[in-house]
């Protein structure tokens, strides 16, 4: 970027759960500037009431995701140059989640579904037992490794149109987590996981749109994990009958 300061035209969605519209700001361009920096600059210098959420600022906490020029992104690690469309930037709250205010969404539905998908460990041992020997190259572990570094940023959830169209759908992140639980040799209750993900809002609703995998900032592949769940679900149907 040139050293002379140019202004960027930023449209920011403002509003509450009931109504809202875009407001325009001019923000001086800087070297090494992220979308989060742009938003913070507006709040600190132009409109003190602008609301947004962040915590870690290094792509670990998954609280800062927003729609940036129509694409869900982690704003703390999105460099302005990467997304600038001419001189324009449009920032809106994440899709598919209720808005609290301005750029802040209520992430509870996302986490409720995480739990509804049984995306949690079901212990088979206690703190008094030694740590289990598990080879890192074992099949289950290799599968888990492809999905475990999820930061629950909800970007995939915002990208998925099935989530938009079907309010019961558990969504890519929750299902991916369920898949990792299902593959964990330490987990004591895989049937519960399978039951949770094969019901009405479960993995069978996924149409393999792939937006989850395309937009995941950590290059995870929920689509693949969901396919795994579909297989397991179908397999268990036949094995139970047979």
């Amino acid at each position, binding site marked *: 970027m040139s050293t002379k300061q140019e202004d960027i035209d930023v449209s920011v969605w403002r509003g509450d759960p009931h109504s809202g519209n875009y407001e325009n700001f001019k923000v001086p361009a800087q070297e090494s500037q992220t979308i989060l920096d742009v938003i913070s600059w507006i709040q600190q210098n132009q409109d003190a009431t602008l609301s947004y959420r962040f915590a870690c600022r290094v792509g670990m906490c998954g609280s800062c995701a927003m729609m940036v020029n129509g694409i869900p992104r982690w704003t703390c690690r999105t460099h302005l140059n990467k997304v600038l469309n001419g001189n324009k930037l449009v920032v809106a709250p994440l899709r598919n989640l209720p808005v609290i205010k301005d750029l802040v969404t209520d992430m509870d539905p996302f986490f409720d579904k995480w739990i509804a998908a049984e995306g949690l460990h079901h212990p088979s041992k206690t703190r008094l037992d030694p740590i289990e020997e598990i080879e890192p190259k074992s099949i289950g572990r290799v599968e888990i490794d492809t999905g475990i570094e999820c930061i629950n940023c909800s970007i995939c959830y915002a990208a998925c149109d099935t989530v938009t169209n079907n309010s019961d759908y558990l969504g890519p992140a929750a299902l991916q987590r369920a898949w990792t639980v299902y593959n964990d040799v330490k987990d004591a209750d895989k049937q519960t996981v399978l039951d949770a993900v094969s019901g009405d809002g479960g993995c069978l609703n996924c149409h393999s749109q*792939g937006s989850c995998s395309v937009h995941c900032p950590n290059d995870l592949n929920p689509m693949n994990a969901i396919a795994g769940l579909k297989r397991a679900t179908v397999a268990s149907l036949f094995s139970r009958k047979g």
Partner: protein
Amino acid sequence: MIRPHRKHSLWLAYILHRISGFCLAVFLPFHFYLLALALTEPDRLDGFLSWTDTPIVKLAEFGLVFLLAVHFFGGLRLMALEFFPWSTSQKTLAALAIASAFLVATIFFLQVI
């Protein structure tokens, strides 16, 4: 306009599959109706079959075959994705499916001309 988060081959494959499936579901009853004509009025069927020689109908036919081909290969792609633990890039498969669909349809098209 396709919204930005949808601009990638996997989503396009999805929407193509959905549209083709839907259109097929709408078209097929007409096709059936046409065939059933044979039951009572074989002449009108013949009349229709010759009518299909006109270019515009040929194009429509091409479209329908294309739909079927697209849906067919798209469906196989989906089931491959779902049933086989997948290794190679999904996108290539999607593109391949559409390309093959085109191929079959075009061959058919060339044949009928």
